[in-house]
């Protein structure tokens, strides 16, 4: 490690860093704007100026930009030198020439990097006598608010949006001091990563529209460390609450997973928590079909009574915690616990587990994905099913660029130089998919194939890697796919990505055979398999293939052998065909539903029980890598909801369930779960338990500047209410407690003296993009511990009947997720339920966009709106998952289509697009 001298003191700093990074890593404050730990340096803002001295005798030195100057052994610098500090003050003064003094009404105020840097650089007096420049703002969609007058032209937004995230609809316009960052015209930002602009922008140009409209300052937000429940990636988040409402979600730094960035579903898809569709009380269906609020203890007693006297089935959910599912499993017994995942998906997940066990490949974290240098994606539409990984893939294809830059002794942080040098050279990424995807722009090869042909491609690549000579089809395969095999073999860290999204087990098996072939060649091979929900892998591991399948439950229902059915956080109408679910719910004598939002399954229940959302309860989720992570309650809900595991435990206790009698708190359930099977051992180490204290103190959820404890409830009482004791977690609903170094999984929000924005995260890190100083528990289920389902893996293969169209599952970042799609903002972006047709298919049926077709399949007929997708291969039709009608069609089944004659075209929906910027 080189030793450098800063203001007369010697420091050891990491090789290859720049002075700005090094200073921040050493805890020395040096203001900056354009540099970003994940995006590197361009030297645009000139804020991080320091003095560099030639030698010990040099007293004058030269002004250099910290972010553009590599550390070198023996180099001498000064931060405090007057020439440097006065220059930095001048830079701030220049940035403030046009910056409005609207901090009191700015959503960034109180967590504004510009405010922090202004104070740090010491600018106070304005010398400029002229007027400030003003700009027109644009309407950028329902998620992001635009306020260009605040812009300080650091170029971070376009560098993130275009260079880092691959977006194309945000650019720097004009020149000199008229530079404008925006779109060609008003309209929603198209990138699924647009929300990061809120955090990337050092001031209030891009702010969270939902927060702006219902505003709370950062210092008044109560936060907790959380995990995004939106998909199987498990990004770490920091949701913030005030007045019982979830106000916003910010990124929570995790060096392995999300780093500094979230996807828009994760950031904006959590406010369903405030929805009016929350179940308001424990309710019992009355004779008139409506629900009456009933006393919860009476309801629980009734339910418990039923349990001991009847045949009970429990249906769990892949979208909720291990603990809730474990509690349900204990309540009804393993043989009566169903994961609630469809038959098809169960088979796919099993195939994934088999692939992981057999291939011998490593399962990469998103951070490790960024280091892979040749990638093959088989079928999985990553941008829609595991969005954050798409961002990692965009970084992975830059490895070739970093290699080229290294040849010129350029460091990877020299961002502009590297991009200019490399132009469009990328590490190879190959994509096989039935339709165009949002990663096509970085792909070296795109193969538009039906799922079964994707599997064929996979097997061909595997045999090319193995170098088998006996295959007759080898030659054509070599022509078609030779370059894929070659690129994977040439790579140092090849990565194969697939998952349950393509709904064909043979594709997953093909992925497995490629990885096996690469492993056999001695390659450090990576395999990522994507699941569809936050805890799909978790619940599958919990179930271990022991419980009945969903179709087995339907059969039991048909035989009238179910008296009581407990459904936890699962809308069955999104899992299976309507007629089957209808039958089941009618057959059971008593249907009890625990859920967060009202849904079709709730409507059919006899008793509904309000469950806490992820933001109101503790829980453990297992992500696509097998990584177990804990989310903590952010706030106590105003609703009478409780965590499902708590309701279930209470029922268990009333019914004297002997396993559950012992359970006093979340930690007990968690511990029992970790002891229940060798697979889940370790999930009790995911985060410190409720007894954890630092110096006898808990970790506060509120910043120490939190204000208005009394004022918030002054309409009820002028006395300061007692803060609720949190007996379940190491966190407190207070502003008092320990706020020094904490384990990463217990950091509710980031703040440091002088650093009010999220940039303060560097104070908690060891170096940029580095580990957290307070440590971090990493619990990953080892692949050898994965237990293969005892159920026969039913192969899900595609129907290749000529007269039929193959139903292909399609996913939408906005719309597929049951809960996220009910968040304000996202609601407007959700696609409507439709069937996507290739142009040829549409022509054949004589339909165009907006017309209706009737799909005839094994579950009968369903009418769907036509959406033409010119990238879809002609014998496939796309069925968007997560929509009410979609569950009636099994992915992979052959559909015959007819034009729907009775179809009424929808009138154009008026969204805020039409309102333009007027709604804010």
């Amino acid at each position, binding site marked *: 490690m080189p030793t450098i001298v800063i203001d007369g003191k010697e420091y050891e700093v990491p090789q290859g860093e720049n002075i700005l990074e090094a200073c921040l890593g050493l805890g020395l404050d040096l203001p900056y704007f354009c540099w970003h730990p994940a995006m590197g340096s*361009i030297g645009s803002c*000139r804020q991080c100026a320091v003095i560099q001295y030639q030698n010990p005798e040099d007293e004058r030195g*030269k002004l250099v930009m910290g972010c*553009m100057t590599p550390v070198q052994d023996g180099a001498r610098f000064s931060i405090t030198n007057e020439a440097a500090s006065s*220059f930095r003050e001048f830079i701030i003064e220049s940035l403030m020439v046009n910056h409005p003094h609207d901090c009191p009404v700015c959503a960034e105020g109180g967590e504004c990097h510009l405010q922090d840097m202004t104070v740090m650089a010491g600018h106070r007096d304005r010398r400029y006598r*002229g007027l400030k420049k003003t700009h027109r703002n644009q309407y950028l969609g329902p998620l992001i608010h635009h306020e260009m007058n605040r812009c300080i032209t650091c170029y971070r937004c376009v560098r993130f949006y275009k260079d880092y995230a691959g977006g194309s609809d945000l650019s720097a316009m004009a020149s000199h001091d008229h530079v404008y960052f925006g779109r060609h015209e008003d309209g929603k930002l198209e990138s699924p990563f647009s929300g990061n602009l809120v955090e990337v922008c050092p001031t209030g140009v891009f702010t969270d529209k939902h927060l702006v409209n219902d505003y709370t300052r950062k210092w008044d937000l109560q936060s907790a460390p959380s995990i995004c429940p939106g998909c199987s990636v498990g990004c770490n988040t920091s949701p913030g609450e005030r007045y019982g409402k979830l106000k916003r979600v910010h990124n929570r730094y995790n060096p392995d997973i999300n780093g500094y960035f979230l996807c828009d579903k994760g950031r904006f898809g959590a406010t369903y928590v405030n929805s009016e569709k929350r179940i308001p009380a424990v309710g019992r269906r009355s004779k008139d079909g409506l629900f009456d609020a009933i006393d919860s203890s009476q309801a629980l007693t009734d339910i418990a009574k039923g349990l001991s006297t009847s045949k009970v089935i429990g249906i769990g959910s892949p979208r909720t915690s291990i603990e809730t599912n474990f509690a349900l499993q204990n309540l009804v017994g393993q043989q009566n616990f169903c994961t609630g995942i469809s038959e098809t998906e169960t088979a796919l997940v099993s195939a994934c587990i088999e692939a992981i066990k057999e291939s011998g490949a490593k399962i990469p974290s998103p951070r490790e994905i960024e280091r892979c240098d040749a990638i093959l994606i088989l079928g999985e539409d990553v941008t829609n099913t595991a969005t954050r990984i798409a961002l990692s893939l965009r970084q992975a294809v830059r490895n070739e660029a970093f290699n080229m830059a290294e040849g010129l002794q350029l460091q990877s942080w020299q961002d502009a*130089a590297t991009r200019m*040098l490399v*132009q469009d050279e990328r590490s190879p990424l190959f994509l096989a998919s039935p339709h165009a995807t949002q990663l096509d722009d970085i792909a070296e090869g795109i193969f538009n194939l039906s799922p079964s042909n994707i599997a064929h491609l996979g097997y061909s690549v595997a045999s090319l890697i193995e170098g088998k000579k006996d295959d007759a089809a080898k030659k054509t395969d070599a022509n078609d796919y030779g370059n894929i095999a070659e690129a994977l073999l040439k790579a140092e860290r090849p990565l194969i990505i697939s998952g349950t999204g393509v709904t064909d087990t043979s594709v997953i098996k093909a992925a497995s055979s490629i990885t096996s072939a690469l492993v056999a060649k001695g390659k450090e091979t990576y395999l990522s398999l994507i699941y569809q929900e936050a805890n799909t892998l978790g619940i599958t591991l919990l179930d271990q293939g022991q419980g009945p399948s969903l179709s087995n439950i339907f059969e039991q229902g048909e035989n009238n052998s179910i008296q009581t059915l407990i459904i936890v956080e699962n809308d069955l109408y999104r899992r299976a065909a309507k007629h089957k679910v209808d039958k089941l719910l009618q057959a059971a004598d008593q249907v009890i539903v625990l859920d967060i939002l009202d849904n079709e399954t709730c409507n059919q229940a006899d008793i509904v029980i309000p469950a806490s959302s992820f933001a109101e309860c503790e829980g453990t989720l297992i992500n696509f890598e097998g990584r177990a992570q804990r989310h903590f309650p952010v706030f106590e809900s105003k609703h009478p909801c409780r965590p499902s595991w708590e309701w279930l435990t209470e029922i268990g206790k009333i019914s004297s369930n002997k396993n559950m009698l012992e359970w006093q708190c979340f930690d007990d359930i968690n511990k029992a779960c970790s002891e229940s099977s060798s697979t889940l051992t370790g999930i009790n180490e995911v985060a410190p338990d409720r007894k954890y204290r630092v110096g006898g103190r808990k970790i506060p959820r509120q910043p120490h500047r939190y204000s208005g404890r009394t004022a918030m409830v002054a309409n009820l009482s002028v006395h300061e209410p007692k803060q609720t004791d949190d007996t379940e977690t190491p966190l407190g609903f207070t502003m008092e407690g320990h706020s020094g170094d904490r384990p990463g999984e217990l950091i509710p929000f980031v703040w440091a003296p002088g650093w009010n924005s999220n940039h303060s995260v560097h104070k908690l890190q060891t170096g940029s993009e580095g580990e957290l100083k307070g440590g971090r528990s990493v619990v990953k289920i080892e692949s050898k511990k994965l237990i293969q389902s005892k159920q026969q893996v039913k192969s899900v293969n595609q129907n290749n009947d000529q007269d039929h169209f193959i139903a292909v599952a399609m996913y939408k970042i906005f719309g597929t997720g049951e809960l996220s799609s009910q968040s304000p903002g996202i609601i407007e972006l959700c696609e409507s339920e439709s069937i996507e047709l290739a142009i040829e298919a549409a022509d054949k049926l004589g339909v165009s966009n907006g017309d209706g077709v009737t799909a005839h399949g094994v579950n009968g007929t369903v009418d769907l709106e036509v959406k033409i997708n010119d990238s879809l291969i002609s014998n496939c039709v796309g069925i968007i998952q997560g929509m009410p009608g979609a569950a009636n069609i099994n992915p992979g089944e052959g559909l015959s289509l007819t034009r729907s004659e009775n179809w009424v075209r929808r009138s154009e929906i008026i969204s805020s697009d039409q309102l333009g910027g007027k709604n804010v």
Partner: protein
Amino acid sequence: MITTPLTKNVHEDRRVVLVEDYEANGGYQGARKSITQMTPSECLQVIKDSNLRGRGGAGFPTGMKWSFVPMDNVSPGHKYLVCNADEMEPGTFKDRLLMECDPHQLIEGMICGSYTIQADIAYIFLRGEYVKAAETLSQAIKECYAKGYLGRSIMGTNYSLDLYLHTSAGRYICGEETALINSLEGKRANPRAKPPFPQVSGLWGRPTIVNNVETLCNISHILDHGPEWFQELGIGEDAGTKMYGVSGNVQNPGCWELPIGTTIREILEVHAGGMLPGYSFRGLLPGGGSTDFLVEEHLDLAMDYGTIGKAGSRMGTGTMIILDDKTCPVGMVKNLIDFFAHESCGFCTPCRDGLPQTAHILQDMSSGKGESRDIENLERLVKFIGSIGNTHCALAPGAMEPLQSAMKYFPEDFERHAKGKKCNYCETD
């Protein structure tokens, strides 16, 4: 002996030199000699020995610049030679003449230069307003392709070169070589971070040399007549001739090819005929709008890189702008700063937001709204914006040169304006 190699063909009436006349006058001999008889490294040595320095303003030794181009074939791919014909430095009007009058001289220089660095593609980056130069150059390029000076197998050798004319869409910053490269790539013309230098990673990430028109016009002559001949053309320590120009209120404004190192006085008094009647000399910008003022005491200095540098200015483009006694230095500097502020690409803070602050003070001063703190504020701005390294490229430091030197040489004018007084020679709107 040829003493004015660059303008020897130029007609009095500035009509274009036809290819036949160009050839008859020794044209394409330098190219023929180098391509058919010399190796690229021999050519490079000749240019190095000639001591030719870049005529675009910075005066960097051309041979040395070229020597940074990787000549191994380790990384196969294109190499580029780009002619910077984006003449836009205020007060500069030399390249226009060379291109409009004798386009083949530039093309021949580019062929020689391209051969030396083994570039296979060359571009002329011409400013969009030079409509006539665009016509003459396009015509000349066509003729060269027809005559086999460009294209496949030039002059029967296995050397091939394609040359394209790109006409710009404006912006002074395109004259900065890396901004020019970005513009040629079809991007916004923000200067690039250096390193890497374009010689290693330039146009489309490939090795690229960017040279000024006048620099390239010298090349074929040097290769044809040898470095010693070229050395002898100069008067002082620099070699060759220089296109000098004078504009302002002088008798005979114009542009002349003279031995490099000719004194300012000779250029101003002999060639430009001295000041117009009724005007007297106060100072001059020696080489365009981004050089420091020189005054009376400097008139006998030789116009070469070293001498002018020692006097605290730069020779720049060698085209002088004369300040007379009926022109206010505050107004003149305001005009320049307005220009630079408007031509900032908007990339770095000191330039983008610092120059408009400077312009605003000068605007107030020249319109009679000056305040006593203005001089201190200007000095502060000069200190922060005026040093190379404080900004991303040299535009803003260049902009500060006339301001800082004007404040030094004409303090009474600044003080007068800082008292809120109007001036007879400034606009007062």
